[in-house]
């Protein structure tokens, strides 16, 4: 790993990071507010049968409990966008993008091994994702404390939620980096990584809204990010194992493939 490259990579993302941290914190703050303001209304609607209970669920979350609302906060398209910018945008641009711009040529003229370059980018992206997750969780925690909702939730589970979220988005980032080392242009790397996230998301949401295909959720990485279970004191270690494997496989692929690739002159 190269410290100077790490600092510069973070520096190049600092404005984006600042904006996303503020947005993530704001969104996190809103989650318990929405739960506090509307959960009784939602519960009444579900009990009256006006709206089927399935529609109170979104992914692995639920509007009827605070842990469920926290889960929705992480699985909402807004959170997806906040975290996806680093996990997909930054990763795919890091190598395929540099290659397309021709700057990888200058970078690799320095005494940097390709594995060192990969590791540095991976660490930088992990840090960015971790900071964004902390912002989201921090917003939620402050909202919970401010609204006095601590009785509805096991706050001791928050570090596990952080670790679980880091593994989920780390898996998407690892996939993005694997795509990035495999293509000479940014667009295909971005496209395939975005498709990977969206297919996972689709399987998760489809299964939650349509009970006949609830099995599809098992095939989504999002389904193994379970703040709901972690904040009610019922974690499932298998979720961590599956996400850990989803991180490791693309990492190993990239570490094997990237040093062996021929990097022809850029167009």
């Amino acid at each position, binding site marked *: 790993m*190269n410290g*100077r*490259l790490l600092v*510069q990579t973070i520096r*190049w993302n600092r404005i984006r990071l600042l904006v996303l941290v503020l947005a993530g914190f704001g969104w996190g703050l809103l989650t318990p507010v929405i739960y506090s303001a509307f959960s009784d209304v939602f519960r009444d609607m579900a009990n009256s049968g006006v709206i089927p209970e399935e529609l109170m669920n979104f992914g692995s979350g639920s509007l009827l409990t605070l842990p469920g609302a926290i889960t929705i906060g992480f699985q909402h398209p807004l959170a997806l966008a906040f975290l996806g910018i680093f996990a997909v945008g930054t990763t795919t641009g890091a190598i395929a993008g540099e290659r397309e*711009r*021709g*700057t990888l*040529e*200058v*970078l*690799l*003229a*320095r*005494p*940097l*091994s390709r594995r060192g370059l990969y590791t540095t980018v991976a660490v930088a992206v992990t840090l960015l994702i971790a900071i964004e997750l902390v912002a989201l969780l921090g917003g939620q925690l402050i909202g919970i404390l401010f609204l006095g909702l601590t009785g509805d939730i096991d706050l001791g589970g928050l570090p596990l939620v952080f670790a679980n979220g880091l593994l989920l988005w780390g898996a998407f980032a690892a996939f993005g980096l694997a795509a990035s080392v495999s293509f000479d242009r940014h667009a295909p790397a971005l496209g395939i990584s975005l498709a990977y996230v969206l297919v996972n998301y689709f399987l998760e949401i489809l299964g939650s809204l349509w009970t006949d295909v609830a099995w599809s959720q098992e095939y989504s990485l999002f389904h193994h990010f379970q703040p709901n279970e972690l904040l009610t004191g019922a974690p499932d270690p298998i979720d961590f194992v599956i996400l850990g494997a989803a991180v490791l496989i693309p990492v190993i692929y990239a570490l094997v493939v990237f040093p*062996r690739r*021929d*990097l*022809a*002159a*850029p167009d």
Partner: protein
Amino acid sequence: MDNPPPIRTEGLTKHYGSVRALESLDLEVMPGEIFGFLGPNGAGKSTMIRTLLGYLHPTAGGASVLGLDIVEGSVEIRRRVGYLPGGIALYDSLSGADALAYLNDLQGRPPTRREELCDRLQMPASVLKRRVRDYSRGMRQKIGVIQALQHDPDLAILDEPTEGLDPLMQQAFYSIMDDLREAGRTIFFSSHVLSEVERVCDRVAIIRAGHLMALQHVDELLARRKRTINLRWRDGTPDLSSVPGLADVTVQGDRIRATLLGEVAPFVRAVASPQLLDLTIEPARLEEAFLEFYAEDEPAEALRQ
């Protein structure tokens, strides 16, 4: 123990599928020389450089740079080498000064030559403060040259270094090359601008379709080329029958035109007479040598099969 040759290739071969970009290339670059690597676009120059620096993996054969194997010692090679890629791309969002500092930090050696190079290539602090995205092509190229040489590398590999430089800056660049040679640095210089190779380089390799066509001192290469002679002669024609290497003699009135291969002295002795009104001996040009290698019957594509 003697220093190893800065660059040595042995049967270096690179194929892209069925395309043979480099075919069994053997060459040695000596310490302290400026070595020209000549060939038109697509001849294999950049492939050779990229293979030496570890961007490409050889299909067969091998090479060493500064005594280090190009596969095993790639990172250490790049620590000691300065590289200017052809058509360099830089980080547009950085200022020129920041780009140089960043690239040098990654290099891990003090930028002992930066100030001098900026001065000689006319890149004052006021220009270096501007963002790279606002630079002209020539200014980017100057930044490229400076980033390759600022850490005073043992070996500089420069791919088309004067591309985009104006004639004044080209002269400044040639003068930098001369100083580096005097300081004992080795430079591997890829170009298709023959006049600058002739001006700067000690030895040249000419490559065609991945094959090494010639590897010689520039002087030797030129000595084997024909000079063009134009003279004006009063009353008749001189007796040139005893001049070795003289050919293609044409006479038009008092003007005589011929070509000369080899020594000039016998010719000068033959025409040393009061009847000689004017004499011009045009120097042999590398261009002619180069074109000769490219004018051979076998087309480049056939060599790639």
